[in-house]
């Protein structure tokens, strides 16, 4: 019964989405106020019904209702509650429902909090959101409904893939989707602006917080995924350039570009058409990412053949959204008049460079990701494009970006002074050289590029700090005055500094783990000792232990360094009772500068166990850097100027001015 309510609510949501997608748009075009007014209640109603539907599916998973196909395929009565709930979105159908729920939440947020938007702009934005909703709701209802009943329900389900039974991965998809879907806001605003034919700084002020919010969530989502891969897959990799990873990384790259170009629109009233185009492309890649991951197209074109209905729908939907919006852009884009002029050496110039490098890098990733698909479709030849391709194309494009990044924020708008910026960066440069020499001295064995990587990371961190110090006039005025400046500085400035420091830390982490990882693999018997890095590990023994829905082989290692006992590590190999799968639970001992990573494998039948150990220098800096970037993003979001209700604050202060006058 509950499932039928969920299904029915979804149909009602579709009806509301159709209303939301058409009436306000037509009303805004023809000045029919009553039709424009429909947008808000329709968006809130759609949110309500989709929430009901999502709650119904969650209920079915929680009570293990095995009359539903989706529950049987992805759940099991013996599963812990957290994974029963995460099982809701751990599959194609449920994840689409989560997607549309988040879409409706964003639409609902505009309806509820967007009081300060001009009514016509708001109506058009909500209409575009409604149209996206129509597409997705149709897709769910026609091809992938999660509420399908089974004629002969089994007694128990098949269980969720054990690898996915992990707290990090349970919350990974929602964050990823908050990011993907968040970019729909930038998209809707872009389409609405194209229809209105007007893009102005006020528009950019509304778009920026939404884009920043989406970007923060996407960063969290990607970092969580990478962290999960690191500790769960059992060999300490943190990024594989896997198509599924690339699918989330491409919108991130373009979203980062969009974040920066929107600043130019807001501050300088120029780069408008480009910003609109970026908004369209970012969301298009988000859509591509959503579909590609769940439909399995990327591993093979033949995945389409197994379910032609879905495949055709996806292609059609992508063609309409991407093609339609680009067509609209081609028709209306040229009419967007650009404002301020600027010289190539200026803040605008630096942001243009940022945009060009990020988009080009994104294009190389896109080509590498889709090339196997094209080649298979055209010639039937099967190839794979692996990490070496991405390292050879992506990295060289990122290096100039990072070199320029430290100087960019020091440029003035309109016309900057490169010489002065360089002079201010002297100290950062000197520090980078010192670090390079230090790295060279400490790690003679490592690759030469590692020296450069560490120097680049330090260059970024020092550059960001110097720029921040300069704003505070630290050391040139009294500390008390600097403190006052610190309080007076807009929060967005602190946010930028933090985010750029985060990038530098990520670079150092990547350099460390890619250059100096040490590895040992050996069949060990109890009592044997192995040395890696500064550590000695002794296998004390191994025994079988029982978990809630698995049994595990647990090895116990005593870790010591220079004869002194440090800790005990207990890696496991888990065999799940409901499937034939095993998973590796690595034991990780993190320190500030490196991780010790231990894995135990199967017994060899002669009293030995296959074991593997890694020392991964600086690996945690990668996620720490991402976290700092995200914190920077949220600090920026807390800036009063960025708040969704920002224009309201202005309105409040306006009467004051009048009173003064």
């Amino acid at each position, binding site marked *: 019964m509950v499932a039928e309510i969920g299904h029915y609510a979804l149909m009602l949501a579709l009806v509301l989405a159709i209303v939301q997608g058409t009436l306000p748009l037509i009303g805004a075009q023809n000045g029919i106020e009553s039709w424009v007014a429909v947008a808000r209640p329709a968006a809130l109603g759609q949110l309500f019904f989709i929430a009901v539907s999502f709650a119904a599916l969650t209920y079915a998973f929680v009570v293990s209702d095995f009359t539903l196909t989706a529950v049987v395929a992805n759940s099991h009565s013996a599963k812990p509650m957290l994974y029963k709930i995460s099982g809701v979105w751990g599959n194609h159908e449920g994840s689409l429902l989560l997607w549309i729920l988040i879409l409706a939440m964003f639409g609902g947020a505009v309806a509820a909090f967007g009081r300060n938007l001009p009514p016509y702009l708001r109506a058009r934005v909500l209409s575009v959101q409604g149209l996206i909703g129509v597409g997705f709701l149709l897709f769910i209802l026609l091809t992938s409904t999660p509420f399908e009943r089974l004629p002969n329900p089994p007694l128990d389900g098949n269980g969720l*893939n054990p*690898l996915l039974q992990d707290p990090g991965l349970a919350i990974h998809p929602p964050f990823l989707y908050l990011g993907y879907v968040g970019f729909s806001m930038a998209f809707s605003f872009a389409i609405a602006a194209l229809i209105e034919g007007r893009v102005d700084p006020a528009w950019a002020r509304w778009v920026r917080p939404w884009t920043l919010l989406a970007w923060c969530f996407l960063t969290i989502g990607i970092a969580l995924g990478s962290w999960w891969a690191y500790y769960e*897959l*059992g*060999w300490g990799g943190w990024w594989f350039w896997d198509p599924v990873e690339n699918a989330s990384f491409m919108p991130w790259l373009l979203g980062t570009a969009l974040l920066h170009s929107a600043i130019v629109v807001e501050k300088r009233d120029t780069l408008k058409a480009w910003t609109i185009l970026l908004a369209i492309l970012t969301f298009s890649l988000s859509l591509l990412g959503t579909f590609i991951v769940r439909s399995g197209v990327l*591993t*093979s074109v*033949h*995945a389409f053949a197994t379910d032609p209905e879905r495949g055709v729908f996806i292609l059609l939907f992508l063609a309409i959204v991407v093609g339609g919006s680009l067509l609209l852009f081609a028709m209306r884009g040229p009419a967007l008049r*650009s404002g301020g*002029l*600027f*010289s*190539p050496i200026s803040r605008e110039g630096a942001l*243009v460079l940022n945009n*060009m*490098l990020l988009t*080009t*890098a994104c*294009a*190389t990733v896109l*080509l*590498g990701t889709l*090339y196997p698909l094209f080649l298979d479709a055209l010639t039937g*030849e*099967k*190839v*794979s*494009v*692996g990490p*070496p*391709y991405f390292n*050879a*194309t992506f990295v*060289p*494009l990122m290096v100039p970006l990072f070199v320029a990044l430290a100087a960019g924020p020091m440029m003035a708008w309109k016309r900057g002074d490169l010489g002065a910026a360089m002079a201010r960066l002297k100290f950062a440069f000197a520090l980078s050289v010192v670090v390079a020499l230090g790295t060279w001295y400490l790690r003679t064995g490592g690759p030469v590029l590692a020296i450069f990587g560490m120097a680049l990371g330090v260059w970024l961190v020092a550059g960001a700090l110097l720029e921040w110090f300069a704003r505070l006039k630290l050391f040139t005025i009294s500390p008390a005055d600097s403190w006052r400046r610190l309080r007076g500085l807009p929060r967005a400035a602190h946010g930028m500094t933090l985010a750029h420091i985060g990038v530098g830390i990520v670079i150092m982490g990547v350099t460390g783990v890619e250059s100096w990882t040490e590895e040992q*693999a*050996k*069949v060990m018997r109890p009592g044997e000792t192995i040395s890696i890095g500064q550590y000695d590990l002794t296998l004390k023994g191994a025994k079988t232990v029982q978990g809630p829905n698995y049994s595990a082989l647990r090895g116990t290692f005593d870790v010591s360094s220079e004869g002194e006992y440090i800790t005990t590590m207990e890696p496991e*190999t888990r065999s799940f009772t409901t*499937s*034939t*799968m*095993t*998973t*590796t639970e690595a034991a990780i001992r993190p320190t500030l500068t490196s991780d010790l990573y231990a*894995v135990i*494998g199967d017994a*060899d039948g002669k009293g*030995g166990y*296959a074991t*593997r150990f890694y020392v991964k220098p600086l690996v945690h800096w990668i996620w720490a850097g991402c976290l700092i970037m995200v914190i920077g993003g949220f600090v920026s979001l807390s800036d009063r100027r960025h708040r969704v209700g920002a224009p309201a604050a202005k309105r409040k202060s306006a009467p004051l001015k009048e009173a003064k006058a």
Partner: protein
Amino acid sequence: MTRKRRRLYLVLFGMALLGVATALMLNAFSDNLVFFHTPSDVTAKSFEQDRRFRLGGLVEEESVKKAEDGMTTHFRITDHDNAIKVVFKGSLPDLFREGQGVVAEGKLDASGVFLASEVLAKHDENYMPPEVADALKKSGQWKGDE
């Protein structure tokens, strides 16, 4: 600087950047494109010895042997018509089993043994690498669910 001038510079710079990117991509493609072959392909064609490729098929029943050091594995990948000997040193993915689909990446040595540097981990027991499924269909050995 005039509007036209600025646009010209931007376009020129953009083109130069795209040129660099294209050069990087072509270069990377020529070095790093890894083709997929079945055991029958390998037996039929002659190969550049130093070119890496992916070999896919099923792990032949009763072919898996661990060497004395415990880390090196010898096995054969088969498509039921032909089989290729594979040597791999390292830890095998959790789902590596006799009779299961497998994809290995590496090179052939002079005697025709495939030296794998990587055996691909797939995260699902029901999952058959699509290339392997295709190859099996081609050789008429597909016993899948269709």
